């Protein structure tokens, strides 16, 4: 059994609901699709018990009514687990900084660029937009247009 297949078996054994939601894309890439309620437990298990101690980044996606979130984790043997979940726009995700203290900057990026709400994130400066950028404008949302361009279009 390959490393990736072993991981699938381990996850499904602990979380039967994940059956059919863990896919092996290639030898070093595993994708895990998990709903928002089960996400914290699955994420914690990967990071704390299954050796995924390398936190790579979070990708945020504008998927219409939801924000798609992919948490990219890796292990020292090179296996990468990409944990996908969805959060309805306007609702909150829990911070991951209790597990990965360095992860805060990626969560701030989600807040600035996609308007995500992150619960429990320690206070700190925004990232990456300037301090005077309007709080309700999130450039990576698909319907966002630069103000000047929008005015011209209208």
């Amino acid at each position, binding site marked *: 059994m390959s490393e990736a297949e072993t991981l699938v078996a381990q996850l499904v054994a602990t979380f039967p609901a994940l059956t059919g939601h863990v896919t092996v894309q290639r030898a070093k890439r595993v994708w895990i699709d998990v709903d928002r309620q089960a996400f914290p437990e699955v994420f914690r298990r990967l990071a704390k018990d299954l050796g995924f101690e390398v936190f790579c980044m979070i990708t945020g*996606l504008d998927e219409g009514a939801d924000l798609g979130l992919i948490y990219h984790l890796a292990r*020292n043997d090179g296996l990468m687990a990409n944990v996908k979940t969805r959060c309805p726009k306007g609702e909150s995700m829990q911070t991951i900084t209790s597990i990965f203290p360095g992860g805060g900057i990626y969560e701030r990026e989600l807040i600035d660029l996609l308007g995500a709400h992150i619960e429990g994130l320690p206070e700190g400066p925004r990232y990456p937009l300037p301090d005077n950028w309007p709080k309700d404008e999130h450039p990576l949302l698909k319907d966002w247009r630069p103000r000047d361009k929008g005015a011209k279009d209208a």
Partner: protein
Amino acid sequence: MPDKKRTVRVPIGPQHPALKEPESFMVDLQGEKISSVALRLGYNHRGIEKGCEERTYMQDLYLVERVCGICSHSHATAFIQAVEEIAGLEIPRRAKYIRTLIAELERVHSHLLWLGVAGHEIGFDTLLMYSWRDRELVMDLFAELTGNRVNYAMNTLGGVRRDIAAEQVPHIQKIVDALEERTKYYIELAMTEETLAQRLSGVGYLSKEDAIRLGAVGPTSRASGADRDTRRDDPYAAYDELDFKVITDDHCDVFGRTVVRLGELMQSYSMIRQILKQMPEGPIAVKAPLKIPAGEAVSRYEAPRGEDVHYVRANGTDRPERVKVRAPTLANTQSVAKMLEDGYLADLPIVVAAIDPCFSCTDRTIAVQGNGDSKTMGWEELVRYGVRWYRDRGVDPSRIKVRGDGLA
């Protein structure tokens, strides 16, 4: 006397606190020692991810190459690997070798650049002059192999754009030989020169636990004993066919980061020689579609500063739905605050420089404005212009003697 120490808050930056790169530090000081640091980043945010969604994959390849002026090939390769994975393209082996060759040459120029910057930050400008002189050999080689000293544009969807001719190989070997000899000298210097060791030892301490906890990558994490390297752990391009060692060190300080980068230079020379010897014959690219089928992929790449991670989601058109870029400096800045804590304020420049944050390089042709007309110069002409400019001001570059075989 009350023993309560007064905390003084000093804002440093964003205008180039250590390197020519904007970032801001809010430093709390107790006497000369730093008690805490808050970082503010984002001054260089250019909206490249959003820009990628509005351009075709081929245009994006050139855009992501400009994420960084030093490790441009790294970002371009990380991006194109993800697109190729979604499209199901298997690139020719020769293309993989050429990508790897450019990648290792890029590591050489980047590490030599860092060595110079580190020398400069500790007042050892001779080291800056030496290592940047040597780095010119690689930069000129890039111009010869790719047409550009920076932003080489070597990649294309499905392979590479330029082949390496058989007659270029001896020249690459000659340059690698020269650089190896000089790197050996720098290693001897680092190991025996007491002032260097004293200035760098114990400075910017980052324990292995903290490096892992805070997500440090590349030479910064390897100098804290974390045995990680994407080239070995999750191989891409031709790395699975090369023999190399991952250099680690357990000093956990700026001295360790120097030792790791110097060791990596030696590994790069060895890899380049293997590439030149083993490079298979054959085509350098396969035909690629303009429209990429719907799908997603994550690509990892060991850039000189640490791991680049690119995520691409395709939607079946000629433009990506989403491109996400994680550059290694973002990962490493999380550790900088920790490295600075309990250190001296005077160490701030070298500690920040020691993670090797990224900044831009310049172009190789210039337009000279004068009397209303402008003129574009080629490389040879630009060199002659530079020599003339200095000579007119009383400096004769031809009188400067360079040790070695005169390649510089």
